[in-house]
């Protein structure tokens, strides 16, 4: 690891790849991870643990389908609980990937190359985890397809004024485009893997997956165009999907939800949580697999800065909510705002403030920012904070709305927690499968970087 003081000086691009890395060394060391599995015990330990939690998820979902959503803590008035909190949280995490890949690509931010593959994979798995929740939170999940516009014999269509229908389109589009984008970016590397695979079986598998990539100039020509086009397509989706998730709440007339700032505030929050999750995952993996040459201190520093910037937008969102509540003079809005701060869920609110607003302020100092353990802890805090934020939005708004007679309280049950834990397990299990079988850093893009530097010398 390089000392942080170096970051401020010299050519910043130089810091994106360690000295001495050549295209050949890049390919060798990155492809070695899937091929040789250099840390089998670590891998098995984490994957095994995650897999056990996946089994817990299966049990939770099984019991859910047997008994119904009543196994959770939801009630009237708090008819949405962990399922929606988790959904928004996961979707938010799924944001960083496409933001890093598409928007930073379009903005020619080359530092994205070391992390884009990994974050895109993270996006996919986060979206997969998120997509579970809208399905299972339905009272009658067997009729999920009624939310889709299909030619029904009774001429019934979804009710298009409902933001939940928009959600279906937004999330499914986002998931699809993210998958295609990730897969297209993976193709040259899959070909590399085919060439380097040790067994005939793996050669076949990688060979099939890379769709006959031979590295011809024509391939590269088409590939680059497609990749940029897809990036252009994905960029607005980054904004749209979480805006619509924000509208899920903003459309409602519930105090605490009914707020025009929600779409941008949700997008910022999503990127915030996405970057924190990238940091949470990259820091240990980088250490274990010795990827410091590719994911350098400079990368971590840049990510920390983006995270901080997003954190401030989110803080502005919080401020706006309270300001609007006060400025509106509306008794209900004001009550919800006050109730967040001093009501029964005040501990959640204050924990949220500590996690999302106080914790990132440590990153102002370049020294602290450069200290990887501190960065890791701050990222963890932000992850928790972003979950708490959704909890506060969903639960505190619902539990005390207009009529005091119908005020209630929400207590999560074991099954709420087990489902949340289960999706975290699923996410980790998928991620470790990815790390095990696919190159987690884009070899072709890093090679370009290495080659460019060689050429410039």
């Amino acid at each position, binding site marked *: 690891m390089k000392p942080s003081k170096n970051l401020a000086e010299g050519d910043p691009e130089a810091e994106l790849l360690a000295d001495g890395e050549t295209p050949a060394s890049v390919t060798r060391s990155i492809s070695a991870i899937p091929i040789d599995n250099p840390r089998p015990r670590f891998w098995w330990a984490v994957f095994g643990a995650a897999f056990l939690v996946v089994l817990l998820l299966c049990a939770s979902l099984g019991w859910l389908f047997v008994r*119904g959503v009543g196994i959770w803590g939801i009630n009237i008035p708090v008819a949405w609980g962990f399922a929606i909190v988790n959904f928004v949280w996961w979707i938010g995490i799924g944001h960083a990937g496409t933001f890093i890949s598409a928007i930073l690509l379009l903005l020619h931010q080359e530092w994205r190359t070391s992390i884009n593959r990994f974050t895109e994979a993270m996006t996919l798995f986060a979206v997969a985890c998120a997509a579970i929740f809208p399905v299972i939170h339905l*009272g009658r999940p067997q009729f999920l397809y009624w939310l889709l516009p299909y030619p029904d014999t009774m001429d019934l269509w979804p009710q298009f004024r409902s933001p*939940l229908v928009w959600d279906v389109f937004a999330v499914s589009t986002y998931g699809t485009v993210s998958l295609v984008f990730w897969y297209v970016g993976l193709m040259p590397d899959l070909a590399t893997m085919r060439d380097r695979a040790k067994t005939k079986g793996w050669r076949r598998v990688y060979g099939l997956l890379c769709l006959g990539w031979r590295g011809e100039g024509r391939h590269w020509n088409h590939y680059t165009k497609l990749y940029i086009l897809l990036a252009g397509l994905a960029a607005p989706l980054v904004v749209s999907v979480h805006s619509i998730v924000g509208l899920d709440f903003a459309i409602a007339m*519930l105090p605490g939800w009914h707020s025009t700032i929600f779409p941008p505030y949700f997008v910022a929050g999503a990127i915030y949580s996405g970057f924190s999750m990238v940091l949470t995952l990259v820091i240990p993996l980088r250490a274990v697999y010795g990827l410091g040459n590719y994911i350098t201190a400079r990368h971590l520093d840049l990510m920390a800065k983006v995270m901080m910037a997003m954190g401030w937008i989110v803080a502005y969102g919080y401020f706006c909510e309270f300001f609007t509540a006060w400025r509106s003079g509306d008794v209900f809005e004001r009550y919800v705002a006050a109730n967040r701060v001093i009501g029964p869920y005040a501990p959640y609110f204050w924990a949220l403030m500590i996690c999302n607003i106080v914790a990132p302020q440590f990153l102002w100092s370049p020294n602290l920012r450069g200290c990887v353990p501190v960065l890791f802890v701050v990222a963890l805090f932000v992850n928790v904070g972003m979950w708490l934020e959704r909890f506060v939005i969903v639960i505190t708004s619902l539990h005390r709305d207009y009529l005091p*007679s119908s*005020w209630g309280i929400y207590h999560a049950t074991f099954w709420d927690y087990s489902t949340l834990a289960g999706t975290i397990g699923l996410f980790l299990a998928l991620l470790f499968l990815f790390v095990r079988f696919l190159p987690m850093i884009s070899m072709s893009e890093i090679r370009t970087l290495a080659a460019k530097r060689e050429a410039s010398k």
Partner: protein
Amino acid sequence: MAATSQDPGSSAPARWRSIGELNGLANEGRDGGDEFPPGASEWPEGLDRRSFLKRLGASLALGGLGGCMRRSNGRIVPYVIPPENAHPERPEYYATAVPVEGYARGILVESILGRPTKIEGNPDHPESLGATDAATQAAILDLYDPDRSRVPLRAGLTSTREVFAAEWAQFLSARPAGQARIALLTEPTTSPSLLREVGLMLDAFPNALWFQHTPLASYEVDGLQPDYDFSKAGVILSVGSDCLYRHPACVRYARGYAAGRRVVDGRIAASRFYAIESSPSVTGVLADVRLPASPPRMRVIMGAIDKALLGNSSWQAGLGAQESDFVGRLARDLRANGQRALCVAGEEQPMDVRRWTASLNGRLGSEGSAFRWLASARSDSNQRSRGDARALRDAIAGGAVEALVVLSSNPAYTSVALRGVIPAISKLPFSVHLGAYADETAGACAWHLPEAHFLECWGDLRAYDGTASVLQPLIEPMWNGLSALEVVRILRSGTLPDSYQIVRECWRDGAAGDFDERWNRWVRLGVADSRAAAGARAPRGPVAAPDSSTEAPGLSLLLAPDSNVLDGRSANNAWLQELPRPLTRLVWDNAALVSPSLASRLGVEDGDVIRIAARGGLVEAPALVMPGQATDCIAISIGYGRWRAGSVGNGVGFDAYQVRPDDGTWGIEGIEVTTTGRRHRLVTTQHHFAIEGRNTVRTVDAVSLVLPKPPPRTSLYGGWPRNGNAWGMSIDLSTCIGCSACVLACQAENNIPVVGKDQVSRGREMHWIRVDKYFEGAPDNPRFLSEPVPCMQCENAPCELVCPVGATVHSSEGLNDMVYNRCVGTRYCSNNCPYKVRRFNFLNYRAPADSIINLQKNPNVTVRERGVMEKCTYCVQRINAARIDAERENRPIRDGEILTACQQACPAEAIVFGNIADPSSRVSARKAEPTDYSLLEELNTRPRTTYLAKVLNVGETAS
């Protein structure tokens, strides 16, 4: 039984025709009707293969006999050839009456394809006037209670009626004719037939003794019943009375009270209501001026009232500021109103208080107008009765009883006196209990006979005002139950009687002319020709104010019948258990109510179990802080902690009979209260009772009647079209007494499930209409506000916007329809409903497909499945039924043709439903009143359900 046919030493015949014959008991010459009583299929343990096969064969052979089951009286039969224009899908209504503590309340019972499904009030009956109270609505559920006793039990084992009759004959034959020392225990009753049968029984057995027991208070004062006409009252004083809620005449009283609180054409001549009580009651909290006082303090205040009315200037001595203000205003108003001053005392008050309160009416001049005396309709002071449960206990202890017959009563639980002699009862040569459940008393008696529900048998009852009704059965007894009438007849004559004939015999007596014609009319109307006791005037001298010299410091305990399960008789009724108690909103429990200041003094919170020691008795119960409770008084309701109530009622709540004095008094002074450190989970449906400065329940002053009107709202989209029918509802908070009859009426009509204490604790109760309760003002004596909240049927419905599948949509007539079939269960509609009136099936709340409960279900309302949202529909099935009728007759739907279930049940006529597009409809008139307002008007949801503000007539302070 298992070994009988194999045992060579047995005297049983080798071939047998019936179980009775097999057991060596004569079959009484009856056909095989009861060969296989319900429950007989539960074979004894240890049945081996051979005897099993034998019985299998016998069963097959006897199956033919079983097919010849005698269909009782042959009067309830399905149509073989349906008459022309018969509509089996359309409900039929039959008039009968529901027993309310022995008195009648006239009802019409809806029967669909032979199943009674819903109870409505009988407009022709003076104690119903077409409405009901909550308990009457719940009575239908008892009929289908799976826990109801189904078969005679002998020492807890299945037996038959024939064996019972044989044993009884054996018991009698062992004694000289007519000399059997029989003790008959009934509840006080108004039934002329039952009284006649009991009389005949006492004639036939000169040594027989008749006792009457009820744990509840008698309505008589010195042998007469006080009766009130609230509509004629200008000033009302209630002394611990809950007569608008729990009284045989409560529906009539509520109707009368409402008349004095209703704004009509922008005007009101409001009555002013004063109440003094120790624990808040449904009636007391309606008062414009309410004074909480512990029972001994109440006596002091009554003394002051007495003095003030007599013009004694020293009345203020010893009173606090609040008290003297109350007494001063009250005395001023009572004197000013004279004939229109009505004084009412609760039945649980000591007799001197009741006597004094009643006498005030005579003194003030309202006797004969707002107040009258009625001859007693119930047998409380019947000459032939030998006393209450204490007398029975003494008789048993003194060996004066050989056979005990307990009819439709559960004294082993409800009588403190008899609880002590249960072992002695079990040792009697003969004891039998007739009851709907194999309850505590069934466990104490050798025999238990299942009792027929009142919808299963013929009978008769008198209402509080003396009006007699004939009860007719709606259905064949489901479990072969007997009525008390029939059991008394069996005991007397040994023959299987026919309750139809017994009742007819009673009414034919001395009747001249065409009896059948009259009988048919009585049965059809539900009201018999007046053989009512005429009004009586009590000759009485001046009555002194209750003696207050014994006021002792310290805490007092006030016992009370429970607002839902009464004395415990309805403990197994799940609707009543889950119906929030009117003021505490507590479900599935009773609790010791403590005032906020006492709670802080004792250091207890809701759910802390406290131990109350009173006169040697001891009860532990969780505390519940009750604003408005008298400071030095703890109140707890009886009727809980039952151990043989059934699967619903067992172990629910705490048994306050443990501290009940056996003389039946309700108040105990000088109690000891200690905390136990334990906690009990109390579950309420409402958790927050402060109104938080929100304008949800509005009040207006009776003098000004001014309600600030919001500016009219404009919209780019215009309003919802109001051509044709536009359904709307108006709920009058001024007349609503908060009795919850609407809640249970809705539950019965709309197949609303019961979810149980645990689910309610998670906030998942399913009632479509709820009665919100708010406290306003100081916790020691707040103003109680109640507000029924059904679906508002908003024109700008927030729920419709957010449903992704269009499962909740607007109808052309302005209903916010819920399409259960289309609902996928996102619950977004509920989140977006500012009134939170939507209910979700979080789990499968339906009864199992083979449950007998399903027979109660209304076939015109979908039974909702798991994962589906539901809510009030304005009883759309009733709207559609009326629409079909109207279209067939080619006319518009008439105003008042559709009554929603809540509206129909409401005793105060607080709910009016109808077409708001028709300016002449009742609902339009109500909505045109100056006190009309919409709940959460500022949200612009434009609710079709609006409210009339509560009118307060507080008046000026005494100074």
